[in-house]
């Protein structure tokens, strides 16, 4: 046993352990969820259900509350992603190209919003929202979600833009392209992997946001993760399983779709605070 560990090296052993942990803690519950969600009849000592069925799926999807929360979640996530792109991409370009004295401080402040105890931040925001009449509004929920995503939505594209060299933009000017065309044909496409990754993170983050939404959006804006709380207590576990799959599926699908962009290169360059 010893010699074997030595032969494969500590790195391989470590990788193996990571894989085991991953399977036990991530795939395991997921598999359990999947089984639960398609269960028709499952009696305790059996390893697998006796009957498979989609009845919990139709049950869940027939609950108005749930169906509308799914729609709402995706709507909000789409709005948040779109708005954050509009705000953050120009900011990221400015951070990448213009050296102004406080740029580091600004980037860092985005980081701070994420390091700050969330609930404290949300409550102080909620106090502000009361005064501005933003409680229980779509705008309020969108704003809360934006606070969460500003950081990486600026940070990752900034370093993506930094990786586009001045000479590459200047070459395009030189070849006859106007500044706008340079941005559209050279800078933006070259930074696209970083922007795509950041957008996907933003979308998923918004889908997943519960605390702030709960505080600001109740009672009218109940998104999937908010409703999840009541489902877990009010419905059978099977319905909860179905619902978690609906909640998790977009993450997995988007991450798979993003794998094309998620080269180690982009990821690591996305997380350098230059």
């Amino acid at each position, binding site marked *: 046993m010893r010699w074997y560990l030595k032969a494969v090296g500590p790195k391989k052993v470590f990788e193996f352990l990571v894989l085991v942990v991953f399977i036990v803690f991530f795939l395991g519950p997921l598999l359990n969820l999947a089984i639960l969600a398609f269960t028709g009849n499952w009696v305790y000592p059996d390893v697998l259900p006796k009957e498979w069925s989609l009845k919990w799926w139709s049950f869940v999807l027939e609950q108005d509350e749930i169906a509308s929360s799914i729609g709402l979640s995706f709507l909000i996530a789409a709005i948040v992603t779109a708005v954050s792109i509009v705000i953050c991409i120009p900011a990221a370009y400015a951070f990448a190209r213009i050296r102004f004295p406080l740029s580091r401080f600004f980037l860092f402040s985005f980081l701070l919003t994420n390091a700050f105890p969330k609930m404290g931040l949300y409550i102080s925001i909620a106090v502000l929202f009361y005064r501005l009449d933003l409680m229980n509004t779509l705008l309020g929920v969108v704003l809360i979600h934006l606070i969460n995503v500003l950081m990486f939505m600026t940070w990752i594209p900034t370093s993506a833009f930094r990786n586009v060299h001045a*000479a*590459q933009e200047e*070459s395009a*000017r*030189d*070849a*006859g392209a*106007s500044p706008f065309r340079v941005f559209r044909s050279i800078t933006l*496409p*070259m930074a696209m992997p970083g922007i795509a990754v950041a957008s996907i993170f933003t979308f998923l983050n918004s889908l997943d946001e519960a605390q702030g939404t709960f505080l600001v959006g109740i009672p009218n804006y109940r998104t999937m993760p908010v409703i999840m709380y009541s489902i877990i207590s009010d419905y059978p576990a099977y319905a909860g399983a179905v619902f978690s799959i609906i909640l998790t599926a977009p993450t997995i699908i988007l991450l798979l779709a993003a794998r094309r962009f998620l080269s180690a290169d982009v990821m690591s360059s996305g997380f350098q605070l230059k």
Partner: protein
Amino acid sequence: MDIQLSIQNLTKRYKTGDGVTDISLDVRKGELITLLGPSGCGKTTVLRSIGGFLEPDSGEILIENKSVLKTPPEKRPTAMVFQSYNLWPHMTVYDNLAFGLKIRKMKKAEMDFAITEVLKLIRMSGSEKKHPGELSGGQQQRIAVARALLLKPAVLLLDEPFSALDAKLRHEMREELREIQSKTGLTMVFVTHDQEEALSISDRIVVMNHGHIEQIASPQEIYDEPKSLFAAQFIGKMNFLKGVVSADQVIIQNLAFPNPKRLTGEVSIAIRPENVILQDGEETGLSGSVKQIMILGHYAEVSVDVQPFGIIRSFQPRDQVKHLHSGQKVKVNFSKALAFPAV
């Protein structure tokens, strides 16, 4: 002779105080002119001003007798090749080359033809579908040159385009560029800090130092008659000795040379190693002893310790150093000596 590019009293100062001052230069049509100088002397500043990427503080830049100062880079009749990062990695070689042509609304068939031709010229036929990441450094720079050529610029600007390549490739690329230049008759401004590169490819060399021009002349002339001590130091190998002017002659100990520049007092004297003559101990000259003999192919470098001047290096034909050995006493004489005011 047609003047293709004329720079008149160009001055550009950065906020830091660095920059270039009072640069004036006329480049003839079809000429390959090199801006040569140590790193930081302002070569890139001049080149970027011509290309439109920097706005000069004062002065005038004319291309084909028209002022281009008010013209943005995309409208200037110039094309630039940078030291690196010229290509766009998300596009194929074909798209990189076609980018400027598409903006110029060239017809597809015409474009295909032009791209095929230019790839032939740079000896990279068939690489249209590759991405820049699949090319070597030298190939990428070739494509960058090709893209610039396709724009049919009035002046081609090259900013140390080969300096990131290894020595052998650099040699090849120089020759290729020279060949392209003679085939296309393009006017080129080439920037380098490598004096050997400048000597080998230029029609004329502009020697720059500290943001101003020291000398503009042909490689021959720069080598034989450097106008300033800096030019003498920077180009080719040189020995420097202290001397003094007396009775209108430049005197080094017991040797005397003419004083065409009418200098007075203390002078620095520059002597090329090939102008150093080594003789037997009986002749007149500076006494020294041979320190080292290095055979470098068809010639040899002999270094001689001459007190109080220090080491003097000389190039000798290989068969003439056979009788020399280190420690041997010799007399050193010079067939040519250039005097400059002492610093």
